[in-house]
């Protein structure tokens, strides 16, 4: 039940006084409530659970964690080549 799917915000609008957004999930568009992310902007990615956007996905953190593993892979390769 706690699953959430990443999608890109393509439009922000108001409906019955609630901040809503159109979210693009790789071509499938659906709506989500953006009320809990007052700072979210069009073009950003968010995690959506049960029609509510929970967080703005952080590109820098993704890059940092993937780069760390990339570097580790290079180190492992070096060790393997030397042994």
């Amino acid at each position: 039940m706690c699953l959430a799917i990443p999608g890109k915000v393509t439009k922000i609008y108001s409906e019955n006084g609630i901040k809503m957004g159109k979210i693009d999930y790789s071509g499938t568009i659906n709506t989500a409530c953006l009320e809990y992310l007052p700072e979210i902007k069009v073009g950003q990615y968010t995690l959506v659970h049960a029609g509510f956007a929970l967080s703005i996905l952080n590109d820098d953190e993704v890059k940092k964690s993937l780069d760390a593993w990339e570097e580790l892979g290079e180190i492992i390769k070096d060790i393997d080549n030397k042994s």
Partner: protein
Amino acid sequence: MKYLDEFRDPILAKKILAEIHKTVTKPWVIMEICGGQTHSIIRNGIDQVLPKEIELDHGPGCPVCVTPLEIIDKAIAIAGKPNVIFTSFGDMLRVPGSKKDLFMVKSEGGDVRAVYSPLEALTIAKNNPKKEVVFFAVGFETTAPGNAMAIHQAAKEGIANFSELVSHVLVPPAMEALLSSPENRVQGYLAAGHVCTIMGWEEYDPIAEKYQVPIVPTGFEPVDVLEGILLVVKQLEEGRYEVENQYLRSVKREGNQPAQELISKIYKITDRKWRGIGEIPQSGLSIREQYSAYDANLKFSVEDIQTNEPELCISGVILQGLKKPNECPAFGKECTPTTPLGATMVSSEGACAAYYKYQRMGK
């Protein structure tokens, strides 16, 4: 899809797996809290490629599974009333009550509808002013902001024919209950990434300290789960017990504060019974008095609920990580996804459903 594909990369997964194999020297029992993580582990075969020293126990993080039978029976009774439109996330409709499930109520003529969001239930209420619309508000901290928003909005717009039957549960008290049990085997936790997205991880610091267990908020893709396991194993091997965040792209220490504020405004913390586990103090949410007009528990009187749990089902033991689904004598025989005895076989996040779907049939 961006933010998914990177974390399903098999080459990266192999690197992390190699690092886990290199790090582990002793046997460790690690519990993944969330049913979504359990499914990721079983679907991707992570349990089958880990070093033999690491045992993964599956935790109680499936709200569908832990909703008490009394509340399921109450939902069924309310849904059967003539003037009611009963709305729920789809997962709850097949959970067996003592005598039937919500789908059977629908087949008997009840107006039972699956919704994608609690705001959809609110729209149904607006469009059907002569009917009472009840939403089955089940879930962990991840789902609470949406369910709180539905009540907040109903109050703001003056929608009086909307109410929630609330059975919300909270993760940290359950983690603590498991750790303080004399039967506990858990030495480290993968905490539920989306629960932490809402609540942050400050409330885990005292648990890690008190019980000396590493706690790692972890995501749901195979790379996330493997990295979460690696972070726990490193801590265990080094004798550390800290909260360390794996799910950096979504979880912040302080969580989502606007969501936390609305949860606290609408709901209060209460004792809650967990199906198969029993009552855990301060482990649930209920509607505050000032919003009692939206409390289906108060709006509908339902008498004489006599619950009847199937004797064969050991889902309570499974939810505590004390047995694996394929150790249940009824697993795959009397109990299958089409003839489930317990909620762990019904829910898309239940451990029994995962073992059955991915054919972990045991000996």
